[in-house]
C-alpha cells in the first residue's frame, strides 16, 4: 500500500495522541516522563499477559468463548494494575508535595494532577496502539494490501488503525476518571472505568461475525464517546468546585 498509506494508518491510530503530546504533554518535562514510564508499564503488562496466555495458544478459531475469557482476564489484570499504578502515583504525589513545601513552592494544583492522570492514560493508550496496531503495520508500507474475509469492505490495516484510535481515546480518558475516582472515593467513577474497559474489549468480539465489524466498530466508538463525555463532565465539575473553593481565599 505504499508509504503514503502506511503513514496514513499510523496517523489515524496515533495522530490524536501526537496532537495531545504536542499541545499538552510536551509543555512540562514531568509529564513527558510520566507518559514514557506509563507506556512502559502498560507495555510490560501486555507482554506479561501474552506470556501467561502463551501455553493456551493457538486458540480455536471458530469458537468465541476462549477469546471472551482472554479479554476478561486481561481486563481484570489491567484494572488491578491500574489501581496499583494509582497507589504508586499517590506516593509520588506525597513526595512532590513535601518537596514543594521544603523549597517553599506551591503544591500540585488540580490541573497538574489532572494532567498527570492524562499523561498516564495517554501512556496506556499509546501502549495499546503500539502493541495492537503499529506492530502489524510494517507490511502496510509495502505495495500490497490485505483484506480479511470477515471484514471485507475495508483493508485490514484500516480497521486495525480505527479500532486502535478508539482504544487510545478510551484508555486516555479512563485514567483521568479512575484517578479522580480513587482520590475522591467516588464509587461510580471507580466502577465505571473497568466496566467501560470490559465492554470495549467484549465489543471487539463482535468482529468475529461475518461483516461484524460494521456493527462492532461504531459501537466501540460509542463507548469511546461516552468515556470522553463522562470525563469532560467530571473535569468540569471538579474545576468549578475548585474555583469556588479557592475563589474566596484569593479575594
Amino acid at each position: 500500500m505504499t508509504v503514503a498509506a502506511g503513514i496514513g494508518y499510523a496517523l489515524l491510530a496515533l495522530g490524536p495522541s501526537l496532537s495531545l503530546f504536542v499541545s499538552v504533554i510536551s509543555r512540562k518535562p514531568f509529564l513527558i516522563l510520566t507518559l514514557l514510564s506509563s507506556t512502559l508499564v502498560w507495555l510490560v503488562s501486555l507482554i506479561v499477559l501474552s506470556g501467561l496466555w502463551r501455553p493456551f495458544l493457538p486458540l480455536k478459531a471458530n469458537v468465541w468463548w476462549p477469546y471472551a475469557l482472554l479479554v476478561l482476564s486481561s481486563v481484570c489484570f489491567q484494572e488491578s494494575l491500574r489501581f496499583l499504578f494509582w497507589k504508586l502515583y499517590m506516593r509520588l504525589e506525597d513526595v512532590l508535595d513535601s518537596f514543594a513545601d521544603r523549597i517553599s513552592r506551591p503544591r500540585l494544583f488540580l490541573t497538574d494532577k489532572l494532567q498527570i492522570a492524562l499523561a498516564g492514560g495517554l501512556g496506556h493508550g499509546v501502549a495499546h496502539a503500539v502493541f495492537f496496531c503499529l506492530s502489524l503495520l510494517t507490511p502496510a508500507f509495502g505495495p500490497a494490501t490485505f483484506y480479511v474475509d470477515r471484514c471485507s469492505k475495508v483493508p485490514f490495516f484500516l480497521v486495525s488503525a480505527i479500532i486502535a484510535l478508539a482504544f487510545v481515546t478510551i484508555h486516555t480518558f479512563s485514567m483521568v476518571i479512575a484517578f479522580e475516582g480513587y482520590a475522591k472515593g467516588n464509587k461510580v467513577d471507580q466502577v465505571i472505568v473497568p466496566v467501560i474497559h470490559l465492554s470495549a474489549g467484549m465489543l471487539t468480539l463482535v468482529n468475529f461475525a461475518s461483516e461484524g465489524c460494521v456493527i462492532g466498530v461504531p459501537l466501540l466508538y460509542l463507548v469511546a464517546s461516552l468515556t470522553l463525555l463522562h470525563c469532560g463532565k467530571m473535569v468540569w465539575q471538579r474545576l468549578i468546585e475548585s474555583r469556588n473553593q479557592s475563589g474566596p481565599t484569593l479575594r
Partner: protein
Amino acid sequence: MAMGLPRLVATAFTLTLVSIFLPLPFSLAGEITSIESVPDLQRLMYVAVDGYPCVRLLNLSGEIGCSNPGLSKVVAPIIKLKDVKDLVQPHTVLVTPDEMEDFFTRHVPLVSNDLSFASKIGGVLIESGSSFQQKLKGLSPDNMFPQAEFSPYGNVEYKWNPTASSIMWKAYNFPVYLLSESGMSAVHEFLSKKERKHKTYTSDVAEFSMVMETTKAGTHNSEACLQEGTCLPLGGYSVWSSLPPINVSSSNNRKPIVLTVASMDSASFFRDKSFGADSPISGLVALLGAVDALSRVEGFSNLKKQLVFLVLTGETWGYLGSRRFLHELDLHSDAVAGLSDTLIETVLEIGSVGKGLSGGINTFFAHKTRVSSATNKTLDALKVAQDSFASKNIKILSADKTNPGIPPSSLMAFMKKNPQTSAVVLEDFDTKFANKFYHSHLDDLSNVNSSSVVAAASVVARTLYILASDNKDTSSSALGSIQVNASFVEELLACLLSCEPGLSCNLVKDYISPTNTCPGNYAGVMSGEPSSNPYLGSVSDVSRFLWNFLAEKTSVQKGNTTSVCSKGSCSRTDQVCIKAESNKEGTCVVSTTRYVPAYSTRLKYADGAWTILPQNTSDSMGMVDPVWTESNWNTIGLQVYTVQHSAYDNAVLVAGITVTTLAYFGIMVAKSFITKALKQD
C-alpha cells in the same frame, strides 16, 4: 449530575451484556487462516506462485527467449486473455493452454503494428495442462525443419515437423511464466476472491522477478556477453561406454566398432519443463534397456566387433555433443582414449521410438545415411532381429525413398563431418514426425508408450548382437536369450520423465545422489572448465547416472574380488569407481566409461573465461553454429498480490492528517475552556 451517572453506568452495563451475547446468533462461518506473526501476514499478502520460466538465450546474432525489459521487477495487473479490450497500461495476460500458440503466433508479432496490444503486455502467464483439442492438434514451438542449417542435404524446406510454430526461437521483451498445477490453483483462488468482494479500488497484480544479467549489462549477443561474463555457454557432459571394456594400453588388436548413439537432452519454450519424452528420451531409454539386456549375455569378448554406446547432450543446441565428440576423436584426446574414427565401422542411432505402437504392432523406420555395405548389414541385422521375436509384433521398415535424407538427428552432424559415414537412425516415423509435441513442454510421459520403447530396445539389443558377432547365422537360441526387462524400462521411464518419483526413484538413487527430483532434460550450461575428468558437481544428474549405470552394466568381473574406493579413484588404470555418491564408498569395476565434454567447437576456455574462436573453414559446422549461451540471473520468481489504487492510499493519508489536526484543534478548544473556567471570577 448525580442522576446522569447511574444512567451512564447502566448504559455501560447493557453494552457489556450486549457484547457478550451479540456474537452468539452469528455463525462463525468459514475457516480463518490464523496469522500468528508479521511474517505470516506477509506470506498471506504476497502469494508466491510456482511455475516454470522462459529465460533469455543468446547466439552470435542476437537473442531469443524472454526477460524483464529493464532492471526492475515487472508489476502488472492480471487480466484473462479473453477479457482483453482497449488496455491503457501494461497488463499481465493469463493465457489458457489452448490460446497459447495463437497468442504467440498472432497477437505478439503484431507488437510492432498493433499499437493497442503493443507495449500493453507486461507479462504472460500460461496455465498448465492441455485440453483434448490440443492433444489432437499438437503444439511444437520448434521449427518445421529443426536445425536445418546442419542438414547434410540441400532440401531445407522439407517439413519434418508439421505442427511447428517456431515460437521458441523468437525474442520477447516481457517475462513469460508457465504455471504449475499448484501455481495455477493459487492464482485462480486469488482472482476468485476479488470477484466475490467486487472491490473497485483494488487490482490484483503479478510481480515478475525475471531480470536477466544480459539485459542489465546491455550485452545482446553471445560474443559480448561471454566477454562481460554475463552469460555461460550451453553444454554438458556426454557419456560413452564400451562393451566389453577396451584395453587402452595395447593399441593393436583393436576390433572394429559398432557405435550406438542416443541423446539425453531436450528443450522447450520453458527451461525447466522439457521432459522430451518421445524426442529423445524414449531413444535413450531404449538404449539403456538394450545395454541392460546385453549385459546379461556371456562371451562378448569373443565377438568380432566392439560395441560402444554413446549418449550425447547438447544436441538440441547445434549438435554440441556430436561435434565435440568427433572433434575429440580427431585430437585423439584422453576423453576418447581407446576409440578412433577409423575403427568406427557403422553407427546406429536410436531416435524417437516412443510412438511406434499402433494396432498392437510396433513399427519403426530405419533411415540410412547412404547406401553402403555397412548400412545394408545393419538393415539385414534389423530384419533378422525383427524375425527372431516369436510374438511377431515388431516391424522394421526402410524409410520412404522420397524423403530428402535422414531426419534431424545426431547423424546429420556425423554426416556433415564425414559424408562417407555409414549409419542408420531408427525412428517411430517415416516421412514426418509422429511426435506432435516435439520440443514442447507437453512431450511428457503420457506422450510415449512404454511397450513401444521396450520393443525398440529388444530389437536394438538383438541387432547389436548380430552386428557384433558378424554372423548372420546366429542361432535363434542365442538371440532368444537376449531379453529386455520390461519393468526396468517402465521404471526408467518414470524416473526420467516424471516428477513422481522422478530422479528420487530407487533405480537412480542406487547409483547417484540426485540434486533435483524433477528431471530437467534441458542441456544446461557448461560451468567451469571442460575436461574429461570433470568436477562432478558441474555434471548433471542424468549424465552422472548414465556414467555409473553404463559403467556397471558394461563391466566385467575379473575374478570375484571387488575393491572399494572412497575417493573416486581405483588402483588399477582399467578400473573406474562407481556408486561413490550414494554409498560414500564406491566399488571399483573394470570398465571403459568416460565423460566427454559437450560444447561448441567455436568456444575455448582459458583463464577462467570463454572466448569465441574465429571461423575456421575446415569446421563447416562451426561456420553455421549459432554458439548458444544462456544469460545469468540473480533470482527468478513470481508472486501475486492485491494493490490499492493510489487515490485510496492518498485518501488514507489525508484522513490521518485530518484526524490529527482536528484532534489538535479540539484539544486547543478544550484547553481554552479550562483556562477560562479557572480564571473566571
